[in-house]
């Protein structure tokens, strides 16, 4: 496995820390007068998602993490695993519950997802920024409301619960931002 010195740290570099693969977010060089130089590095742990700041002595080396992002289509779940396919090679990869996590509610068949592999195994599944979901259940709401004051909860086909404007009805397809979990619009037909 490759080792990286602090001089090679930049946003996007994947390194190992406390036995967990991490993504470097920021790297700032600090040096006290006539003293040891340090790098203050902001890091996201890829499994726990925790963001933390870590200080290294400048020139120190850290083991790189064998992490790779793949864009794969979501196929189906068998209850235990979620299956994804590379549309070019038809190769399939199965991610477990821990990797899918809360994002399970955004998985729509055939949507392109980013699967992050660490040492060849999926550790996170990231859905597209926007998904279209069918509403399976929501209160009828009041006619004539178009401003969407406050809205109402709507349950979608994937199990996600999204706040929608009062005029949106059961059976409709809506566009949702998966990063914030917020309703964007009715889906364009």
């Amino acid at each position: 496995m490759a080792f990286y010195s602090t001089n090679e740290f930049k946003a996007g570099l994947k390194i190992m820390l406390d036995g967990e693969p991490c993504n470097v977010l920021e790297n700032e060089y600090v040096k006290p007068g006539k003293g040891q130089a340090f790098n203050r590095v902001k890091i996201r742990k890829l499994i726990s998602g925790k963001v933390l700041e870590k200080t290294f002595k400048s020139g120190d080396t850290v083991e790189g993490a064998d992490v790779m992002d793949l864009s794969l289509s979501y196929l189906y779940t068998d209850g235990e695993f979620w299956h994804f396919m590379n549309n070019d090679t038809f190769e399939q990869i199965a991610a477990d519950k821990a990797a899918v996590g809360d994002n399970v509610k955004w998985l729509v068949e055939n949507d392109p997802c980013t699967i992050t592999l660490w040492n060849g195994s999926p550790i996170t599944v990231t859905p597209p920024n926007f998904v279209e979901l069918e509403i399976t259940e929501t209160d009828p709401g009041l006619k004539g409301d178009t401003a969407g004051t406050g809205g109402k909860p709507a349950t979608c086909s994937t199990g996600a619960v999204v706040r929608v404007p009062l005029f949106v009805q059961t059976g409709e397809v809506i566009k949702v931002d998966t990063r914030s979990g917020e309703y964007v619009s009715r889906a364009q037909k």
Partner: protein
Amino acid sequence: MASSSVSWRPTASIATLQKRAELTVAVRSFFARRGVWEVETPCLSSATVTDEHLQGFSTEFVGPGAAQGRTLYLQTSPEYAMKRLLAAGSGAIFQICKAYRNEESGRWHNPEFTMLEWYRPGFDHFDLMQELDELVQLICSTEPAERISYQQVFMQHVKLDPLSCSLAELKQAAAQLGHGELAAAETDRDVLLQLLFCDAVEPQIGQQRPCFVYDFPASQAALAKLNPDDPRAAQRFELYFRNLELANGFHELDDAGEQKARFEQDNLKRRSQGKQEKPIDPMLLQALEAGIPACAGVAVGLDRLFMLALAQSSISDVLSFDVGNA
């Protein structure tokens, strides 16, 4: 910072560069009014500094008398040459020049930067702090600076006496700040002192007005005299303002023997860390032997001073071109 799309354009705006030129004129006239004269010394020198944490650049001179090539070092500061001028009877002198330090680049660092350095025979470090304070007030329109000893400020913010605490106590304090791993592997007291100072002290001082910290631990004396009242501390000071270290000054060590011993100590440290030893400058030692007047000297990072004067957030904002598009 180097970006992926490198532009030919200056990193600073033309308006900033014009203001910078005006400020440089103001610095020069500050010294002219005080009878401190401007000197120029070579950027290329046959010797360099032994400082453990300074990495110099070098190049090769080939020409008459050096057919096989002769290594020349780019100065990390003009200190040694200026001390030779002092020994030769220059009196009070200042210099504005480029200094070069390898491995230093970031929001507050550029490997090539502008240094203002001056020496005042007859001054001690407190007199020189006063003069520097007046210069900073003139250039940055600041309030008069605070002054606090390293020991005091460290005790205030880290709750340890930096001159007497143990390595284990320093490790523990670093671990409490989230540097457990770094601290556990560290055997050098000074690295831990520097880490704690950077992390726990610097952000707490010099926010409203500049702050002088003086009497650094003797282990970080560099070219300063030891404090005659407490030889655990050296007569060295630094100036901080808004998270920037602006200047480093000394009540200058004038003892050639002691200076040589410190250089040799630096090289021992370098060797123990697998770093290359550096040739000790014989010319500086000879000048110290010949005798330099009792004096204080200080080096100011002029780009940083201008950053503060012009309310810029990164050193690139006051440089025509930074290392990314030089």
